[in-house]
């Protein structure tokens, strides 16, 4: 650990929250130091105040109510909290670079890439347009972007999420800052892209001897990139130390709980009593969308798979791989272009709305975004009972069934009369499950049910799924982008890539020795706890 004079020194930092929040201070009494060339990770769940620290250093805290009320931040021999806005402005971009979480909205949509990077040079140095253009081209090449001369004059919407993140890094590091702050830069990216970005940041940091303050909620990322790590819980720094020590021998109980909740990726060797006949069978299902511009996009290209009663089939793939489309086609929400979907031997894809009526209750779905899956204007009770009322079940009986289901998913009966906004993300997902079970389905489709939740909450919901599928002997179609979750939950796994089924087999076999190159790349990209920071 390089012991030179620390680049960044934070002592006893407090940051206030607007009145009426769930706690008075977002962050209280935080102290940390960061030396040149060192990478410090701040990890914690949403709402732990980790981003606040990063924004406090950069002087970007939002509005009058959220501001540092105590403590000192020393950087480059200066006391940042005493600096005026214009003094801070000269530091930002020149001595401290910062990159953010959402690449899709972090760039000005109507300004060329070249100008958005050139801006950094022109704001701090007085250089001519020609020289500035050359330096931008160099910066673009430096972050590994293909064909910089074409890219410099194009607009952000033409670039992918990963490319835009590289542009952000190029802008942040344009003037060789001493400190780079990265606020969850890879959270919104696919697993494979995330791996490349992390590799890039680590390489640039090592080459330039830069200090790196990395904010994340994913311990796998911590293992990949951090020299030292600090764990935050509700504004308090509960633990800090070298990454290896904290990961292998977490001292604080909260850290232990967090690490334990991470899907371990070990396949469970449970052998569910599976009925011989296939409950659901997809046969050469294809689905093509016609875009307004006239172009046609093939979401599914001849996918075939089977699912038996009591079995859980995992469908894994990155965004745009077509995994969600399968879920929507099975439930009949989206019509398919060709092929067959056999449910108990009958091709339900050819049935009209009337034909689907008897199947209404038998196939149900749990959605990804807890905040969108429940109608904010309806009470939880009505959300659960509507399906039953539609089937003609009397009101009283439906209400009793709802209470029963709520207790099954671990919520009290009083939840019936409350509105969705009164529940947390995890609780809402439980209600979503209760609603899906209300109709006593045989097949349950879960479309990324936990990816929007914090790690700890994720674990509880996954347990609930496990408990429910056993109790009702459900067939479960589990759609996720997280291989670790798939490995832990599913009996068999199907890997999707650009609408095609590239790998399909027993979970243990697919995880241990994947046959298809893409699956291997996917597995390699998943951040592992074991890998020590080299």
């Amino acid at each position, binding site marked *: 650990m390089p012991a030179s004079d620390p680049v960044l020194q934070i002592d006893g930092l407090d940051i206030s929250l607007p009145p009426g929040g769930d706690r008075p201070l977002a962050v209280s009494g935080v102290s940390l130091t960061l030396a040149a060339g060192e990478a410090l990770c701040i990890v914690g769940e949403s709402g732990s105040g980790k981003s606040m620290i990063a924004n406090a250093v*950069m002087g*970007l805290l939002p509005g009058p109510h959220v501001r540092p009320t105590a403590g000192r931040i020393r950087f480059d021999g200066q006391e940042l909290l005493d600096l005026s*806005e214009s003094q801070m*402005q*000269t*530091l*930002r*971009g*020149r001595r401290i*670079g*910062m990159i*953010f979480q*959402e690449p899709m*909205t*972090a*760039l*000005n*949509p*109507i*300004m060329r890439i070249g100008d958005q990077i050139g*801006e*950094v040079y022109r*704001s*701090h140095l007085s250089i001519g347009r020609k020289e500035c253009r050359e330096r931008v081209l160099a910066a673009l090449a430096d972050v590994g972007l293909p064909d910089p001369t074409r890219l410099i004059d194009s*607009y952000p*919407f033409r670039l992918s999420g990963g490319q835009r993140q590289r542009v*952000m890094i190029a*802008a*942040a590091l344009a003037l060789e800052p001493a400190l780079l702050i990265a606020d969850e830069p890879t959270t919104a990216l696919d697993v494979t892209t995330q791996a490349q970005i992390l590799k890039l940041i680590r390489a640039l940091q090592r080459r330039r001897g830069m200090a790196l303050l990395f904010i994340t909620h994913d311990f796998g990322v911590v293992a990949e990139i951090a020299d030292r790590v600090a764990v935050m819980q509700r504004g308090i720094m509960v633990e800090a130390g070298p990454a290896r020590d904290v990961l292998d021998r977490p001292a604080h109980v909260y850290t232990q709980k967090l690490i334990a909740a991470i899907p371990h990726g070990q396949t469970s060797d449970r052998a569910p009593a599976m009925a011989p006949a296939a409950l659901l069978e997809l046969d050469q299902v294809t689905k093509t969308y016609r875009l*307004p*511009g006239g172009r046609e996009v093939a979401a599914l290209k001849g996918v075939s798979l089977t699912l038996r009663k009591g079995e859980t089939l995992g469908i894994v793939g990155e965004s745009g791989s077509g995994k969600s489309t399968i879920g929507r086609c099975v439930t009949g929400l989206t019509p398919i272009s060709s092929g067959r979907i056999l449910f108990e031997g009958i091709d339900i894809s050819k049935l009209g709305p009337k034909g689907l009526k008897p199947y209404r209750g038998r196939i149900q779905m749990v959605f990804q975004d807890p905040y969108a899956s429940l109608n904010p204007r309806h009470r939880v009770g009505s959300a659960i009972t509507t399906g039953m009322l539609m089937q003609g079940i009397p009101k009283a009986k439906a209400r009793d069934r709802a209470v029963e289901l709520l207790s099954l998913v671990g919520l009290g009966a009083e939840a019936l009369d409350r509105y969705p906004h009164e529940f947390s993300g995890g609780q809402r997902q439980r209600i979503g499950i209760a609603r899906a079970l209300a109709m006593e389905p045989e097949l349950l489709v879960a479309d990324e049910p936990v990816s929007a939740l914090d790690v700890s909450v994720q674990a509880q919901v996954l347990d609930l799924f496990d408990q429910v599928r056993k109790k009702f002997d459900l067939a479960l179609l589990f759609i996720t982008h997280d291989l670790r979750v798939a490995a832990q939950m599913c009996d068999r796994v199907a890997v999707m890539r650009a609408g095609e089924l590239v790998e399909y087999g027993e979970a243990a076999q697919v995880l241990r020795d994947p046959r298809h190159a893409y699956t291997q790349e996917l597995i390699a990209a998943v951040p592992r706890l074991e890998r020590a920071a080299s």
Partner: protein
Amino acid sequence: MNRARFAARRLAQGLVALLLIVVVNFFLIRAAPGDPAQVMAGEAGAGDAKFVAQLRQQFGLDKPMIEQLGLYLGHVAMLDLGQSYRQQRPVAELIGERVPATLLLTGAAFVLSLLFGITLGAWSSARVGTWGDSLVTTVALIFYATPLFWVALMAVLVFSIKLDWLPGFGMATVGQDFSALGHALDVAQHLVLPAVTLALFYMAIYARMTRTSMLEVSRMDFVKTARAKGVPRGRIWRVHILRNALLPIITLAGIQAGQMVGGAILTETVFAWPGIGRLMFEALLQRDYNLLLGVFLFTAAMVVLFNFLTDVLYTIVDPRIELR
């Protein structure tokens, strides 16, 4: 989709819209009681049935409705808008006489309202919460909520009658011997009150809209990125925020411009400004069908034109939008 094909398609859509408007209005105005022959006969003080029948025959109103429509559309296709019954002159000429007055009034009002509206909106959005901001917002709300004709009347009452600084009526002083420059000055003097009154109403809309739009854009992520890059506040405000904030304003301005040309009826009535709005109102009361339809066609054409210009302008300003 290159520009030419886009222009052709929009033109076709525009023509269909115009055709629809003409046909709908053709029947709509004939639903009104009375017809031009009766009005003319009444004026001539010779209202016996024979005279009215003679006029109807002269105007071609005795033919069946469908035939009249066919005839009219035939003429319009050859850009001949027919004759005004009441004034025995070609409709195109009558409208032509009024267009300069309307363009002068609505043009001046449009520029004034856009200029002041956006500057005030941007200025107050930069000072959210200060007394300056609440002053601008309240004044804008008041002008938005006031009946336009009443503001016009009060303007005449104060500036023309009580203070006598500005003429309150008409477009030029009657019977004044002017040189070209003198004449222009005289018209300009007459233009001040109506243009400012009309502009106040739209300035209020633009100011409120710009302020809301500026505040929304300033909360977006790329503004935070710009600050993180150490870009000076002034440049962020001018380049990043203002340009993005102006996108919705362009759409609104395009719609308002189109509507304005045809509709400054109230301002024209209070200030006796010889514009298209009043011509339309008079033609309506006189049941001067051809003249009324001609005005509707002209105003609709202006709306279609301005919508087209707005779309083209939009694709230039916002690269994400292509010409579909």
